[in-house]
Protein backbone atom coordinates (compact mmCIF):
# COMPACT_ATOMS: atom_id res chain seq x y z
CA UNK A 1 0.00 0.00 0.00
CA UNK A 2 0.94 3.66 -0.20
CA UNK A 3 3.34 4.96 2.38
CA UNK A 4 3.67 8.43 3.84
CA UNK A 5 4.03 11.01 1.09
CA UNK A 6 5.41 14.51 1.37
CA UNK A 7 5.28 17.41 -1.03
CA UNK A 8 7.21 19.13 -2.35
CA UNK A 9 10.27 16.90 -2.30
CA UNK A 10 12.48 19.98 -2.59
CA UNK A 11 11.78 23.61 -1.82
CA UNK A 12 14.10 26.54 -2.40
CA UNK A 13 13.03 29.87 -0.98
CA UNK A 14 14.49 33.21 -0.05
CA UNK A 15 15.09 34.45 3.46
CA UNK A 16 11.97 36.06 4.86
CA UNK A 17 9.51 34.14 2.69
CA UNK A 18 6.67 31.90 3.88
CA UNK A 19 6.60 28.18 3.07
CA UNK A 20 4.15 25.33 3.50
CA UNK A 21 5.15 21.69 3.59
CA UNK A 22 2.53 18.99 3.15
CA UNK A 23 2.29 15.49 4.58
CA UNK A 24 -0.13 12.74 3.54
CA UNK A 25 -0.04 10.00 6.16
CA UNK A 26 -0.82 6.35 5.68
CA UNK A 27 -4.57 5.92 5.41
CA UNK A 28 -6.12 5.15 8.78
CA UNK A 29 -3.16 6.27 10.86
CA UNK A 30 -4.41 8.50 13.63
CA UNK A 31 -1.04 9.74 14.85
CA UNK A 32 1.16 12.09 12.83
CA UNK A 33 4.58 13.50 13.63
CA UNK A 34 6.90 16.13 12.21
CA UNK A 35 10.67 15.95 12.64
CA UNK A 36 13.50 18.11 11.34
CA UNK A 37 16.78 16.58 10.21
CA UNK A 38 19.80 18.81 9.79
CA UNK A 39 22.75 17.68 7.72
CA UNK A 40 24.68 14.93 9.44
CA UNK A 41 22.27 14.75 12.37
CA UNK A 42 19.45 12.56 13.54
CA UNK A 43 15.85 13.71 13.23
CA UNK A 44 14.61 16.09 15.93
CA UNK A 45 11.01 15.98 17.12
CA UNK A 46 8.89 18.99 16.28
CA UNK A 47 5.22 18.17 16.87
CA UNK A 48 2.81 15.29 17.36
CA UNK A 49 -0.84 15.14 16.33
CA UNK A 50 -3.37 12.70 17.67
CA UNK A 51 -6.31 13.13 15.34
CA UNK A 52 -6.88 16.80 14.60
CA UNK A 53 -5.24 18.21 17.69
CA UNK A 54 -1.60 18.88 18.46
CA UNK A 55 -0.96 16.69 21.48
CA UNK A 56 2.62 17.90 21.89
CA UNK A 57 4.22 20.86 20.08
CA UNK A 58 7.14 21.21 22.45
CA UNK A 59 9.70 20.67 19.69
CA UNK A 60 8.69 23.64 17.55
CA UNK A 61 11.72 25.96 17.72
CA UNK A 62 9.81 29.25 17.83
CA UNK A 63 6.55 30.92 16.89
CA UNK A 64 7.51 31.13 13.22
CA UNK A 65 6.67 27.43 13.00
CA UNK A 66 3.10 26.21 12.99
CA UNK A 67 1.40 22.99 11.94
CA UNK A 68 -2.20 22.02 11.32
CA UNK A 69 -4.15 18.87 10.66
CA UNK A 70 -7.72 20.13 10.24
CA UNK A 71 -9.44 16.88 9.24
CA UNK A 72 -7.23 14.42 11.05
CA UNK A 73 -5.46 13.23 7.92
CA UNK A 74 -3.28 15.57 5.83
CA UNK A 75 -1.01 17.90 7.77
CA UNK A 76 0.73 21.11 6.77
CA UNK A 77 3.83 22.52 8.41
CA UNK A 78 4.00 26.27 7.98
CA UNK A 79 7.14 28.36 8.41
CA UNK A 80 6.89 32.14 8.43
CA UNK A 81 9.74 34.57 7.76
CA UNK A 82 12.14 31.79 6.87
CA UNK A 83 15.75 32.03 7.98
CA UNK A 84 18.85 30.36 6.57
CA UNK A 85 19.02 28.24 9.72
CA UNK A 86 15.68 26.67 8.81
CA UNK A 87 17.38 24.82 5.96
CA UNK A 88 16.98 21.10 6.67
CA UNK A 89 15.03 18.03 5.68
CA UNK A 90 11.57 18.06 7.22
CA UNK A 91 10.30 14.55 7.85
CA UNK A 92 6.76 13.47 8.48
CA UNK A 93 5.79 10.16 10.07
CA UNK A 94 2.54 8.48 10.91
CA UNK A 95 1.46 5.56 13.03
CA UNK A 96 -1.48 3.75 14.45
CA UNK A 97 -1.64 3.22 18.17
CA UNK A 98 -1.47 -0.45 18.96
CA UNK A 99 -2.78 -1.97 22.14
CA UNK A 100 0.78 -2.38 23.36
CA UNK A 101 1.23 1.37 23.20
CA UNK A 102 4.37 1.05 21.17
CA UNK A 103 3.62 2.87 17.93
CA UNK A 104 5.74 2.04 14.91
CA UNK A 105 6.40 5.29 13.10
CA UNK A 106 6.47 5.17 9.31
CA UNK A 107 8.48 8.00 7.82
CA UNK A 108 8.00 9.78 4.53
CA UNK A 109 10.93 10.68 2.25
CA UNK A 110 11.03 14.24 3.58
CA UNK A 111 10.98 17.71 2.10
CA UNK A 112 14.41 19.21 1.61
CA UNK A 113 14.12 22.94 2.39
CA UNK A 114 16.84 25.35 1.35
CA UNK A 115 16.61 28.97 2.44
CA UNK A 116 18.87 31.27 0.46
Amino acid at each position, binding site marked *: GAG*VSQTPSNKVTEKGKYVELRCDPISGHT*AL*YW*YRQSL*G*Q*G*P*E*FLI*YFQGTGA*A*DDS*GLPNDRFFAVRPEGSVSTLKIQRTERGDSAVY*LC*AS*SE*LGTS*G*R*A*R*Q*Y*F*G*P*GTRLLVL
Partner: protein
Amino acid sequence: QQQVKQSPQSLIVQKGGISIINCAYENTAFDYFPWYQQFPGKGPALLIAIRPDVSEKKEGRFTISFNKSAKQFSLHIMDSQPGDSATYFCAATSRDYKLSFGAGTTVTVRA
Protein backbone atom coordinates in the same frame (compact mmCIF):
# COMPACT_ATOMS: atom_id res chain seq x y z
CA GLN B 1 20.94 18.85 24.12
CA GLN B 2 21.35 15.41 22.62
CA GLN B 3 19.70 12.81 24.85
CA VAL B 4 21.15 9.83 23.00
CA LYS B 5 24.86 9.66 22.14
CA GLN B 6 25.85 7.44 19.22
CA SER B 7 29.23 6.19 18.03
CA PRO B 8 31.09 5.79 15.78
CA GLN B 9 30.13 8.49 13.31
CA SER B 10 31.07 6.17 10.46
CA LEU B 11 32.52 2.74 9.88
CA ILE B 12 33.74 0.61 7.01
CA VAL B 13 33.39 -3.15 7.10
CA GLN B 14 34.21 -5.90 4.66
CA LYS B 15 31.43 -8.00 3.22
CA GLY B 16 30.68 -10.79 5.64
CA GLY B 17 32.07 -8.87 8.61
CA ILE B 18 30.32 -7.58 11.72
CA SER B 19 29.26 -3.96 12.14
CA ILE B 20 28.83 -2.68 15.70
CA ILE B 21 27.18 0.63 16.61
CA ASN B 22 26.94 1.86 20.18
CA CYS B 23 24.52 4.21 21.90
CA ALA B 24 24.28 5.63 25.41
CA TYR B 25 21.55 7.56 27.19
CA GLU B 26 21.06 9.38 30.48
CA ASN B 27 17.30 9.63 30.84
CA THR B 28 16.24 6.66 32.95
CA ALA B 29 12.63 7.27 31.94
CA PHE B 30 13.38 5.96 28.44
CA ASP B 31 11.70 2.59 28.03
CA TYR B 32 11.66 1.86 24.32
CA PHE B 33 14.75 1.77 22.10
CA PRO B 34 14.30 1.44 18.31
CA TRP B 35 16.92 1.43 15.59
CA TYR B 36 16.25 3.04 12.22
CA GLN B 37 17.94 2.54 8.85
CA GLN B 38 18.08 5.39 6.36
CA PHE B 39 19.17 5.32 2.73
CA PRO B 40 20.09 8.52 0.88
CA GLY B 41 17.01 10.48 -0.15
CA LYS B 42 14.70 8.29 1.90
CA GLY B 43 13.09 8.59 5.29
CA PRO B 44 14.23 6.43 8.22
CA ALA B 45 12.72 2.96 8.41
CA LEU B 46 12.31 0.96 11.61
CA LEU B 47 14.78 -1.91 11.71
CA ILE B 48 14.46 -3.47 15.15
CA ALA B 49 13.46 -2.33 18.64
CA ILE B 50 13.92 -3.45 22.24
CA ARG B 51 12.43 -2.76 25.65
CA PRO B 52 14.63 -2.65 28.78
CA ASP B 53 13.17 -5.81 30.28
CA VAL B 54 15.25 -7.94 27.88
CA SER B 55 19.02 -7.87 27.32
CA GLU B 56 19.09 -8.99 23.72
CA LYS B 57 16.83 -9.16 20.69
CA LYS B 58 17.68 -10.75 17.39
CA GLU B 59 15.96 -10.42 14.04
CA GLY B 60 17.76 -12.10 11.18
CA ARG B 61 21.25 -10.64 10.90
CA PHE B 62 20.45 -7.74 13.23
CA THR B 63 20.86 -7.98 17.02
CA ILE B 64 20.31 -5.39 19.75
CA SER B 65 22.22 -5.80 23.00
CA PHE B 66 20.90 -3.80 25.94
CA ASN B 67 22.66 -3.00 29.23
CA LYS B 68 20.21 -1.26 31.53
CA SER B 69 22.64 -0.64 34.38
CA ALA B 70 25.16 1.00 32.06
CA LYS B 71 22.42 2.79 30.12
CA GLN B 72 23.90 1.56 26.87
CA PHE B 73 22.64 -0.39 23.90
CA SER B 74 24.20 -1.50 20.66
CA LEU B 75 23.33 -2.80 17.22
CA HIS B 76 25.26 -5.68 15.71
CA ILE B 77 24.95 -6.39 11.99
CA MET B 78 26.20 -9.88 11.30
CA ASP B 79 27.43 -11.06 7.88
CA SER B 80 27.31 -7.48 6.60
CA GLN B 81 26.23 -7.12 2.96
CA PRO B 82 26.71 -4.25 0.49
CA GLY B 83 22.96 -3.63 0.67
CA ASP B 84 23.38 -2.83 4.37
CA SER B 85 25.33 0.31 3.44
CA ALA B 86 23.20 3.06 4.96
CA THR B 87 23.00 5.42 7.91
CA TYR B 88 21.78 3.87 11.14
CA PHE B 89 20.15 5.80 13.96
CA CYS B 90 19.48 4.65 17.47
CA ALA B 91 16.57 6.27 19.26
CA ALA B 92 14.82 6.25 22.59
CA THR B 93 11.51 7.34 24.03
CA SER B 94 9.65 7.38 27.30
CA ARG B 95 6.34 7.80 25.52
CA ASP B 96 4.80 6.38 22.41
CA TYR B 97 5.70 9.22 20.14
CA LYS B 98 8.57 11.54 21.08
CA LEU B 99 11.61 9.79 19.67
CA SER B 100 15.04 11.14 20.62
CA PHE B 101 17.55 10.14 17.95
CA GLY B 102 21.30 9.70 18.02
CA ALA B 103 23.41 11.55 15.46
CA GLY B 104 23.70 8.53 13.19
CA THR B 105 26.37 6.13 11.96
CA THR B 106 27.17 5.79 8.29
CA VAL B 107 28.00 2.17 7.49
CA THR B 108 29.86 1.28 4.32
CA VAL B 109 30.17 -2.39 3.41
CA ARG B 110 32.97 -3.11 0.97
CA ALA B 111 32.42 -5.99 -1.44
